[in-house]
């Protein structure tokens, strides 16, 4: 490891890049991707971007925050930050996470146990600013110096040095977007300190006080969702059209009549997909339709605002946006009078609506919510459809979406299904609640500005890529088709980009997809060949 040392207080220093990640430092990938010079070259951040935006962290940028043009602008930036910092620790502004945040602020023993757990820190070859505790320590020192009583003159002695200037502010904002919020580090902390939570809280401070957030999550995400109905930009009319096309395709492909029901009052189930599936992986909502119809479920989709898009990007950056979207989802269910919401294959939507929103949805908004994985398990394991596992006789591994598994404890339903229908199923190492993030978590999968996508492919997604290659270690030959089951839209987005970037389909015939596709692929009474290997 040859990174220069970066101390916590260095965050305020006027260096060009605080700590870039040279390609030569990255953790080597397994064979056949172990020769660095044969891998795609990382894009550098353009000089134009450096000129215009504050990019002095690590050679990439998410927030594209313009450089302050005057000392006055610098001062205002710092003042707004301080105002937000104070609010982060007030009950009226942050009751949602105040207790967990305060405990994480006050009790870190700086033992670095968390560092070993972080895929980004490991993949980068241990870039010191990617240590999960680095950004936490910056916030901790600022909090203790400027917010907590008794900060004052003794603060440097008690808590360590920190200088607050506009560089500190913008670098801290960027640093909050070098964490996938997967909480693997929190799981390993012997005390219970949660660095993922701290990154989340930093993001909130910048969004809720200073309107600094990635446009992909805000303008193009939650705002668009509440304006037109979906963060994909699809209105109700468009989504109905698209689903109609998908139904026709499914009917052709499976030989089974499929017609997706819309706005059925009193249905048992309101199924909410991540609307990105409808555009990027139409076979996924299509397969849901095939399975639900074949199983004879009483189900419907909703055409209400956000009722057909389970995305809730507020989970990643803003409590108010989060609560608003969650209320839209619950209201859509309430309006139809369904018995429960079933969430399609989208990890963050699962956690957002089932767990995080649980205490926000009070009174008649407290509609029951359930994972599609348990619904599917019930259908498959109780033989409500008939399966022929020999149709899935190819190597299959499972990616565990952090939000469903580590953050919700939904571990076994998807495995029980795979063990039944995929004779060559094998686990990744590690898996289950110890899994690694795909590298696209917390919204990264949809962030492609400047050279950030290269950062995703080379750094945040590196560990998952290594795990996939290792899971198929003995069958990497391209004559053997292989399948990574990733029952999460965001994870699939990251895997799509990652596998494409490294040319994995061409070199090794590794395909990715959801769980429902595998189920339909082996359904009896359905034409064989639902998974279209060549159409990847």
């Amino acid at each position, binding site marked *: 490891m040859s990174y220069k040392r970066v101390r916590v207080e260095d965050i305020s220093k006027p260096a060009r890049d605080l700590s870039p990640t040279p390609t030569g430092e990255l953790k080597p990938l397994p064979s056949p991707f172990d020769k660095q010079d044969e891998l795609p070259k990382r894009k550098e951040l353009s000089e134009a971007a450096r000129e215009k935006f504050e990019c002095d962290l690590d050679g990439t940028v998410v927030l594209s925050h313009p450089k302050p043009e005057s000392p006055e602008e610098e001062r205002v930036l710092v003042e707004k930050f301080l105002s937000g910092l104070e*609010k982060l620790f007030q009950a009226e502004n942050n009751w*949602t996470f105040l207790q967990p945040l305060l405990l994480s602020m006050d*009790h870190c023993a700086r033992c670095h146990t968390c560092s070993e757990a972080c895929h980004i820190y490991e993949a980068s070859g241990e870039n010191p600013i990617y240590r999960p505790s680095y950004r936490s320590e910056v916030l901790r020192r600022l909090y203790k110096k400027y917010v907590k009583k008794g900060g004052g003159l003794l603060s440097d*002695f008690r808590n360590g040095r920190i200088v607050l200037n506009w560089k500190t502010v913008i670098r801290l904002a960027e640093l909050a977007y070098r964490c996938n919020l997967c909480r693997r580090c929190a799981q390993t902390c012997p005390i*219970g300190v949660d660095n993922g939570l701290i990154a989340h809280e930093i993001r909130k401070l910048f969004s*809720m006080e200073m*309107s600094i957030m990635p446009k992909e999550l805000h303008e193009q995400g939650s705002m668009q969702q509440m304006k037109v109905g979906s963060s994909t930009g699809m209105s109700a009319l468009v989504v109905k059209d698209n689903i109609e096309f998908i139904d026709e395709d499914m009917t052709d492909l499976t030989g089974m009549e499929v017609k997706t029901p819309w706005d059925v009052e009193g249905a048992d189930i309101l199924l909410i997909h991540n609307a990105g599936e409808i555009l990027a992986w139409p076979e996924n909502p299509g397969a849901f339709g095939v399975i639900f119809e074949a199983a004879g479920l009483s189900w419907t989709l909703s055409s209400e605002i956000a009722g057909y898009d389970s995305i809730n990007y507020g989970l990643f950056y803003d409590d108010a946006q989060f609560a608003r979207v969650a209320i839209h989802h619950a209201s859509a269910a309430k309006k139809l009078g369904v018995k429960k919401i079933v969430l399609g294959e989208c990890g963050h939507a699962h956690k957002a609506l089932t767990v995080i929103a649980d*205490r926000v949805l009070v009174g008649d908004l407290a509609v029951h919510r359930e994972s599609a994985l348990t619904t599917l398990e019930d259908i498959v394991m109780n033989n409500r459809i008939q399966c022929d596992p020999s149709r899935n006789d190819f190597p299959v591994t499972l990616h565990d979406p952090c939000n469903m598994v*580590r953050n919700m404890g939904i*571990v076994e339903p998807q495995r029980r299904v795979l063990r039944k229908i995929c004779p060559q199923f094998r686990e990744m190492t590690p898996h289950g609640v110890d899994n690694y993030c795909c590298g696209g978590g917390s919204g990264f999968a949809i962030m492609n500005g400047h050279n950030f996508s290269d950062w995703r492919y080379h750094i945040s997604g590196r560990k998952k890529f290594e795990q996939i290659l290792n899971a198929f270690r003995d069958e990497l030959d391209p004559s053997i088709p292989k399948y990574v089951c990733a029952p999460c839209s965001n994870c699939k987005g990251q895997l799509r980009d990652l596998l494409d970037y490294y040319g994995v389909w061409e070199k090794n015939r590794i395909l990715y997809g959801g769980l429902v596709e595998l189920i339909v692929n082996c359904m009896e009474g359905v034409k064989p060949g639902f998974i279209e290997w060549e159409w990847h």
Partner: protein
Amino acid sequence: MSLDAVLILVTYACALVFVVSVITRFVKIARLPVHVRWELYPVAHEKGRAGYGGSRLEELDWWTRPIRKSLLGEMKVMIPEILFLAGVRHKNPSQWLRSFPFHFGLYLFIGTILLLLGGGLAGALGADFGASAGFFTGLIATLTPVFGFAGLGLGLIGSIALLMRRLGNVEYREYTSPADFFNLLFFVAAFGVALIAQAAGDADFARMRGFFAGLLTGGPHQAALGVTPLMAAAIILLTLLIAYIPLTHMSHFFTKYFMYHDIRWNDEPLIVGGRLEAKMMGVLGLKPTWAAPHIGADGTRTWVDVATTNPTDAPAVGKDAAE
């Protein structure tokens, strides 16, 4: 005022600071507003599922199923975690080699205090710890020096090892504040002086037991043998240390309860009409003041108002509008 009396006063004062600090902080944390769910799996009380990290959310119509919690499951995690620092041993073995003796030394030190309190009480009531000691007083007399020397010794070794790592390893040093160094030095000094004091002048801890008898009777007990000056220094250092711990991040010895039970393992679902919902109604009535225009908070609108407003309905102002 005699030295014994001064020591007794200092000990009482420090014990009071310790108790008041712990209670104040405990109450303060417990009274923080209810937060959203933020559990992390495995959740140890998930009966039959904790082993692999599963939850009740794996079940079809999970809200219709009885909640099956296992206290034994929690014990199976907490006991090895508290006693042997199982998490650190598994995830950070090199740190565990330093941290375990330090913490286990502290546990034995606490055990020593309890034995001294028991012995002091028995002594104050006239029990004999000499040749004609009974079974329990004999046991106390035997165990006290074992616990005492082992505790002080392990604590000293552990605190020196932790200090050396923080001084010698740049990755640790950069995250260590001057106060952290002070804390470790404080432990080294207190344990070191106590170890020497006991070894040099009170190897069977009889004098210390006498001091505790004096503590319990509110003054130097007639049976007190009198502490040596070195023991007096040790008592002052150790009692100040005990008073100091809950004022620092080392208060995790009790706040860890909240970090596990209130956060990591808190999977309590909201039940309409239940206790949790009532609490939620309270916090949803709080009035935020976040300044970003899309929040629409002005200090008069509640969280319910904010959450039920669609920000795209109203014309945005400020930066949101510009974008």
